[in-house]
């Protein structure tokens, strides 16, 4: 039996040698290399911050007021900066995220190809490129000059930075919602507002939420716009975000890092780790929320 088929030539299914195979290998190697190159600095940053900041982290470090820079590492903490960051970022989120999502809905669902929609889309894209320090100066001249430093002013600046990011990411998500879904809802006699609220928005919500949280995480790490708007430099917490100078983690990191005292530097590393941890927690929340909202999408 086997001898009968011995005559048959086996099909050669190996990849043919030559330039095509070589190109494939080169491309694969290049991709692996670029991945390694990308991951090295990222890993270094994380390892360094954790190594230098982890030992100082404790509940009292996160809540105590800021001590004079000369004191050693076991004194005081960064409580006012943690509170300030939470206050300011929360305010900025409340202002920018709903506005940005509504703007994206206008651009994708209502504006069509109209002049106004294209103009707004263009402006929002330009706004993405505005350096954050300019945004700080803008709020300084518009608000701080008249009403003084406050957490609110910082939130305005961060909100302005978040807005175009939220608009752009939400717009892209809304664009991904297939038109057949809209038609299906229209065919049942739904109005445009209804279609948008009950079909389009829920279908895109997972992506919108994760895009917005990314914008929030990015804003939480902004330093430059806060210098002009919340001033920083205070030692005890300011629980009122609507008036008076405030402080935030990025400002604290900046001022501690420029101190000659090892205690202050150690507290700076601790603040850096706290900031990364906040961003990390936001990312995890984004993942969970996305998974929850898109549970009917597959």
């Amino acid at each position, binding site marked *: 039996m086997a001898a009968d088929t011995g005559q048959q030539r086996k099909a050669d299914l190996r990849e043919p040698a030559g330039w095509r195979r070589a190109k494939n290998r080169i491309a694969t190697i290049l991709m692996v290399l670029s991945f390694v190159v990308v991951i090295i600095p990222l890993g270094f940053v994380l390892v360094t911050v954790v190594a230098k900041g982890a030992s100082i982290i404790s509940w009292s470090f996160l809540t105590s007021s800021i001590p004079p820079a000369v004191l050693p590492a076991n004194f005081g903490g960064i409580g006012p900066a943690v509170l300030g960051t939470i206050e300011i970022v929360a305010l900025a989120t409340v202002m920018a995220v709903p506005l940005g999502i509504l703007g994206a809905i206008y651009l994708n669902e209502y504006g*069509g*190809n109209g002049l106004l929609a294209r103009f707004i889309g263009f402006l929002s894209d330009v706004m993405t490129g505005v350096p954050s320090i300019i945004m700080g100066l803008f709020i300084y001249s518009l608000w701080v000059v008249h009403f003084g430093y406050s957490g609110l002013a910082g939130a305005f600046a961060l909100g302005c930075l978040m807005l175009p990011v939220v608009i752009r990411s939400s717009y892209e998500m809304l664009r991904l919602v*297939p038109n*057949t*879904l*809209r*038609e*299906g*809802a*229209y*065919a*049942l*006699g*739904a*109005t445009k507002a*209804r279609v948008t609220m*009950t*079909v389009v928005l*829920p*279908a895109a919500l997972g992506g919108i939420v994760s895009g917005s949280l990314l914008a929030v995480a990015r804003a939480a790490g902004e330093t430059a716009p806060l210098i002009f708007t919340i001033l920083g430099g205070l030692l005890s917490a300011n629980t009122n975000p609507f008036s008076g100078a405030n402080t935030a983690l990025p400002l604290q990191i900046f001022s501690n890092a420029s101190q000659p005292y090892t205690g202050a530097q150690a507290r700076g590393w601790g603040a850096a780790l706290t900031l990364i941890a906040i961003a990390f927690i936001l990312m995890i929340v984004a993942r969970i929320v996305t998974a929850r909202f*898109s*549970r*009917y*999408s*597959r």
Partner: protein
Amino acid sequence: MEEPQQTVTNLPRPASASQPPRTQLDGPVGETIFDVRNVSIWYGAFKAVTDVSLAIHENEITAFIGSSGSGKTTVLRSFNRMNDLVPGARVDGEMNYRGQALYGGGVSPTAVRRRIGMVFQKPNPFPKSIYDNVAYGPRINGERNKAKLNEIVERSLRQAALWDEVKNRLNTSGLSLSGGQAQRLCIARTIAVEPDVVLMDEPASALDPIATGKIEDLMRELKSQYTIIIVTHNMQQATRVSDRTAFFSVLTEGDSDTRTGVLVEYGPTEQIFQDPTDPRTQAYVTGRMG
């Protein structure tokens, strides 16, 4: 074979313009649901359909057949004003629904669509649970009563012959269903609002023969309650389910190469397939091109 070089001006009209063709079926003919006279439909400067006249009767299944680009779907979508969603779309001529001008002043497209539902070519369940998919229409009509909604959902899914397959997983995603099930879900969603007319745009073209058979059985069952218009590329399907058939064709204007869809012939399905009067219908239904 007929001469392909033909101009719009010497187009043979299906019937005199003022009198839409109404070929009698055996037995009584239902009330006229749609009365279409000399309708042309434009997308911007493109005239997609030229001079269509026909009448759709109650509790019948009317099939639109014809090659791609002949305007079947365009005409279908004009019945519930879905073309309004296409920028630049325009309907010329008279189109009446139960005596009311569909494109008359003061007519709300959403009110039209609540009475004239539509099932699309590709199943398009919402990314919501099966229950919420079916309850969507009743909810936008203001139904909030939980017991009433449960009842509507069960009745619609039963009518769509899907209940037994999904009754234990009403809370799973509508997207988890197979193609045929998803299309039946879309039919259930459409009939949940108890429309007067159901428009179907090639509802089985994405489905396998077994799922197609189920959809066809379903249509025959729904016929007693609804008036159905179906666009299909499948001529066997038209002969299997429809009472009347309209054959559309593409007309190419000789010198300018302008293409437009025209209604060539409309009549009882049996007559269209066995004894067509127009040579183009004859050619199409016997498989010799349209």
